[in-house]
């Protein structure tokens, strides 16, 4: 009896908690509302199942509690009921999966007009690179990284000279523009995570990973690292500012390029000995991702 009541209280209490507790999604700031929708659909379908099963169990525990004069029913199988339950469950799963995969298809399909922004992670800081006037990011390699070239940009690549480098400052993103975030790590795994954007992705040394988003509201948001990266993991923070077009252009105008910030590195004098072959790894990875996006 007590157990049955407690089960009912848990079912009802959980539903009440879900709707009335102060803890819920941080307001979204990107186009990935489909993720929130998918969570809500999942809540609806599974929540009904959760409450129904618990209440049924509570009913059984109360109704069929031990009595000396009672004898349990003997019914080893009931194929009809079992198949019926199988199909209902399968239908529920299809109901969860279909909207999920449709949204996922959108997530893996990067719009052709997306602007590439690069995030570079290292223990325990974020750096960013934006394409210059040519609209293209230059190739890079970890082997080219030096004091004169902290991003490891390829000085022989004409696209790299005008790349805008952001170090020790906030990243700015334009409002309502599709952006492809290219992610690169120079040491261990990291994860570029802005809760309001919903999307996140690991940074993996030796690879360029990516995700895309369109920002939907202006504001300043926290960047956190979401993949354990050592003792400074929790302190690996940054901020991203979403600006309307005018403010973004104004900010962009104030930023400096690779050639301006690191003339020595951009001239390539330090890395004269580096052959093209050595920077191939990352170069290739970058191109592959671009193709996948199309």
């Amino acid at each position, binding site marked *: 009896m007590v157990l049955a009541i407690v089960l009912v209280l848990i079912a009802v209490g959980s539903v009440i908690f879900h709707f009335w507790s102060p803890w819920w999604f941080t307001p979204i700031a990107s186009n990935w509302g489909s993720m929130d929708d998918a969570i809500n659909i999942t809540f609806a379908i599974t929540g009904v199942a959760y409450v129904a099963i618990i209440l049924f169990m509570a009913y059984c525990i109360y109704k069929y509690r031990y009595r000396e004069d009672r004898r349990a029913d*003997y019914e080893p199988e009931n194929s009809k009921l079992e198949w019926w339950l199988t199909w209902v*469950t399968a239908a529920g799963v299809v109901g969860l999966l279909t909207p999920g995969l449709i949204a996922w298809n959108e997530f893996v399909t990067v719009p052709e007009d997306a602007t590439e922004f690069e995030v570079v992670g290292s223990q325990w800081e974020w750096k960013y690179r934006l394409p210059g006037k040519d609209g293209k990011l230059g190739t890079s390699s970890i082997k080219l990284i030096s004091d004169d070239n902290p991003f490891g940009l390829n000085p022989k690549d004409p696209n790299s000279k005008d790349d805008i480098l952001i170090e020790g400052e906030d990243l700015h993103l334009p409002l309502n523009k599709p952006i492809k975030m290219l992610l690169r790590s120079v040491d261990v795994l990291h994860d570029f995570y802005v809760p309001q954007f919903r999307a996140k992705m690991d940074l993996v040394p030796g690879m360029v990973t990516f995700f895309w988003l369109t920002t939907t509201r202006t504001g300043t948001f926290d960047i956190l690292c979401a993949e354990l990266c050592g003792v400074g993991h929790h302190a690996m923070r940054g901020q991203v500012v979403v600006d309307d077009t005018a403010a973004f252009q104004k900010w962009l105008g104030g930023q400096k390029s690779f050639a301006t910030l690191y003339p020595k590195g951009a001239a390539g004098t330090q890395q004269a000995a580096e052959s093209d072959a050595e920077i191939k790894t990352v170069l290739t990875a970058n191109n592959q991702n671009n193709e996948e996006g199309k």
Partner: protein
Amino acid sequence: MSNGMLEETQVVPLAEIEEVDLYHAHHWITKYVFSQDAKIIAIQYSATAILIGLVGLVLSWLMRLQLGFPEVFDFIDAESYYQYVTMHGMIMVIYLLTALFLGGFGNYLIPLMVGARDMVFPYMNMLSYWVYLIAVLVLTASFFVPGGASGAGWTLYPPQAISEGTPGIDGGIILMLVSLVLFIIGFTMGGLNYVVTVLQARARGMTLMRMPLTVWGIFVATILALLAFPALFVAGVMMLLDRVLGTSFFMPEMIVQGEMTSHENGSPLLFQHLFWFFGHPEVYIVALPAFGVVSDIISTHARKNIFGYRMMVWAIVAIGGLSFIVWAHHMYVSGMNPYFGFFFATTTLIIAVPTALKMYNWVLTLWKGNIHLTIPMLFCVAFILTFLNGGITGLFLGNVIVDIPLSDTMFVVAHFHMVMGIAPVLVIFAAIYHWFPKMSGRMLHEGWGQFHFWITFLGSYLIYFPMHYLGFIGVPRRYFEIGETSFIPPSAATLNEFITVVVLIVGFAQVVFIANIIISIFKGKPAGDNPWNATSLEWQTATTPPGHGNFGDELPVVYRWAYAYSVPGVEADFVPQNMPPDEVKRTDTATGAVADDPPELHQ
């Protein structure tokens, strides 16, 4: 018709199981220490697992103290916090749950439940335990080496696990990897035993489709483990080589503290694939034995056959098979080719179907039963609710688009603790309350059991249910301290304090459980041979606790499945598996139904 099964045994002669020569110990050292008796080995495994599990429990308190009350405890710094995280996870998943379900319950229950004298390779079984013990000691030693234990997180992702900036990259990670390799060697020796014993040493009449679901669960879990652990083994060996000899299996070019390392062209993602190729089946290595145990305990204490036995067996097998093709759902944000998401989300959600069927069948077993709310039954009900909750949040995380925002947040922590932390532990408690009378000959104290149950069940729900919502806010996991953010409300800190307080209460309540065990061994109420009126063979032994060789002079002969509860036409509400059909007392011999297998099993 009244002796249909008897006729059948005459038509199809059952396999003759020859008597085995057991090694009979003559000295207390070979009897109780270097024992070859599976039951002693089981107790050794269980005691060791529980002891190291208590270390894991204390580590969780330390973590929660930091999360609930940051900056209060000076002795917890970021370094030690990540060491607690790592050791807690590894200890609980491998050294407690895997060891206890397979090494503990597997050893105790398989021979008894299938009607065997012992495991088929008793000497190897003994070695299995001692290698496990060494693995535990090596792991424990890592706390005391310079630099301390590894702080890489229990997933040990490279490059970070063996790179500067992570605690314990000197001795800690090396001992961790050596310990894992030893564990797998030890487990393999035991695991082969469990599989061969189930396949080769069953009593006459114990067909596979008459085995209790506990045996099915442990059997399939062991096969999973034998296939999955090798992936962890090679990953562990390769990482050791990367760390000790400077190879680059998992290590790419990287710049650490301003210097280019000597590693080149290794693949961090390869490790993740190997790890989760092991890691996902590992979830079911823990879950399947729990499924089996719950099925048997519910059936016994509800005095009703398990509903849909054949479906339950095939669901275990299907879940086991599917568990090998879902691993990359742990890697949706790892940077792997995003198109994998379609495949792994689909397989992951498909696995929900057989799992849900098991859930329905447990509840349907309660339906029209005659339910004794004993302590084992209470824990099973708690398991159903907890596992249902954790299974449902698995549907969130398995669906790739939903995983992206929730991955690496506290939602994940809440999910896997519900589904493979609390749920299996509740089953362990159910199993101990259920089988302790057989192991010791005495009952555990009912009142203390009630206290233990309510604190543990309600407490763990209060800990983990609200924790999911921290994940919705976006609170990341594995954070030593959250510090200043613009998106986490102050109320989240209050919730964290609350959770920590409940964690401490639930943790300390386990003292009552341990005390109950220790005191009941000596002072518990005598249990008799079959206190629950159960049907399966372990309750039909000649002595309690069973002696070496399990059964008396004659091995039991099995006439029916393990779920002959409340069979119509039979006087008692249970018929033991080994009771000959002509000894079954029927209420009405003229119209009495068969006290044997349900006819469906012979279709």
